[in-house]
């Protein structure tokens, strides 16, 4: 049976009569719980943040909150967040692409690929607080590597200060979950490369370099750039690892928002935290939008 062309009114022309929501308004009733739920716990809180960004403490319309984002500590936090996200996205994209290539060259159902994909899933999506502790155990003041270097070579990892708990430390720890995310996103793209393309280059006398320069590279470029944008958005949104690692100060935007949720809020700045949230949504939204565009462009080759 063909799907009804007219939307909604399916009951009358269906081959299978009987009880059940036949009328269109009854058919719509089935999706009401889902829409109500998502409306309450996703759309409403989001709208609250967006609307609050444009409100002063008395609820009136103002652009002051947004203007505050463009100066002082808030602007610096945004710049640092962008810097951290961009550096770790670049590192993650390049190293992750190499790892993907190394894994894709192996057997599709082999143990190496299974372990790498499962491990990447854990670190990329469910890491959070444990990742902070992983690095405390490794290169914290009493960490495994710290002690080893100190006892065996007399090298003090913290000679230049407590860098693990500042931006350089965050960069290192973020890269630790960016590379796995790149593997998850980029591995399917590599799988989309057809062996025939490689064979065509080979049979025409092209080298490995020719293949990657003129065939593989250009095809993968949109996927690579798209993945890098996704990584950027991922690092920009990340909170848990940074919160567990950095307990003093708020170098990046998510930690600034923490300050607004947990600490003292200055009079007249009640909605500044929401404006910071709006700023994050805009940056992440732009990155994700471009990612979706590039994905679509890459999908042309996968038909």
């Amino acid at each position, binding site marked *: 049976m063909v799907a009804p062309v007219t*939307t909604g009114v399916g009951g009358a022309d269906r081959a299978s009569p009987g009880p059940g929501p036949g009328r269109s308004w009854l058919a719509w009733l089935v999706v009401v719980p889902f829409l109500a739920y998502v409306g309450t716990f996703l759309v409403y809180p989001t709208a609250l943040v967006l609307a609050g960004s444009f409100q002063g403490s008395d609820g009136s319309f103002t652009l002051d909150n947004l203007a505050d984002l463009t100066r002082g500590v808030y602007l610096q936090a945004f710049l640092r967040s962008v810097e951290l996200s961009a550096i770790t996205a670049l590192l993650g994209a390049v190293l992750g692409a190499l790892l993907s290539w190394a894994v894709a*060259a192996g057997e599709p159902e082999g143990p190496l690929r299974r372990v790498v994909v499962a491990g990447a899933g854990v670190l990329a999506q469910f890491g959070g607080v444990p990742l902070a502790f*992983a690095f405390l155990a490794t290169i914290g003041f009493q960490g495994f590597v710290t002690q080893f270097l100190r006892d065996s070579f007399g090298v003090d990892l913290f000679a230049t200060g407590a860098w693990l708990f500042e931006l350089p430390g965050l960069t290192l720890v973020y890269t630790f979950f960016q590379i796995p995310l790149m593997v998850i996103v980029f591995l399917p793209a590599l799988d989309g490369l057809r062996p025939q393309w490689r064979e065509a280059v080979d049979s025409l006398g092209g080298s490995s370099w020719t293949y990657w320069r003129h065939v593989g590279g250009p095809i993968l470029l949109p996927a690579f750039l798209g993945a890098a944008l996704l990584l950027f958005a991922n690092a920009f949104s990340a909170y848990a690892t940074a919160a567990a690692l950095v307990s003093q100060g708020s170098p990046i935007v998510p930690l600034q928002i923490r300050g607004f949720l947990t600490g003292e809020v200055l009079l007249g700045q009640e909605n500044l935290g929401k404006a910071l949230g709006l700023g994050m949504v805009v940056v992440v939204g732009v990155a994700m939008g471009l990612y979706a565009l590039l994905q679509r462009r890459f999908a042309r080759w996968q038909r």
Partner: protein
Amino acid sequence: MAAVTKPRRSAGSAVARFAILLVLGGFFLLPLVAMAEFSTRGAGGTRSLASWAAIVDDPDLVEAILVSVQLAVASSLLMLVLLVPTMTWIRLRLPALRRLVEFLCLLPVAIPAIVLVVGMAPLYAWVNYFLGDSPLTLTFAYAVLVLPFAYRAIDAGLSSIDLKTLAEAARGLGASWGTVLVRVVVPNIRTALLGASLLSVALVLGEFTIASLLNFDTLQVRVNLLGKRDAGVSIAVSLLSLLFAFALLFLLSFIGRRRRDTAVEEG
């Protein structure tokens, strides 16, 4: 091994491949080894399992673990109850709504949890007023967080079966819509549902942002708190939770393959 490359080039690329796997493998394994080493330190350079034993000796930590496990189960169930009937129904009767539902389900990807929690704080004042301040109320927030993962898994499951034909056959034989859902749709996409649930469990067990900022005592919040006092125990629990999540996702990789096999058999 390398099916794509021809033999004459495989020597060079095999070396490169080996080097990449060695270096990055080391980078990823080192912190795990360090966690194992750190959490088994005893007094005066000896080895001891005291930190691991302390996990079960800390009633607050045990309580937090139990809360997180309950949250994982409750959130997975709520997610299934919300998504499965809705997504099935939309494919069968309301295709016009498909884009909207997809957009709503993927929306949490574009809204960072740290932003969502800003808007949820006032909402939870109401939730806790009406339902009490049990940490289990986090179920509501977590069912939203798992939507993107769950949607993709269930959508793939529904795409792999001929839903319309199955539903019409069952309806033709006199089955009610409820029967269609429970006895036809659910068994046919059970592996996708299991996949969606495992992802949700892994996500909820690792969630920190919303729990900590709404002041609920879950596993990750407790681990973070403990770390200020006794790093050994926190590191032991962290390693445990990473390994547990790994086990879940490793299991998932086999389920994914089995689904394709069954699809071939049935098709």
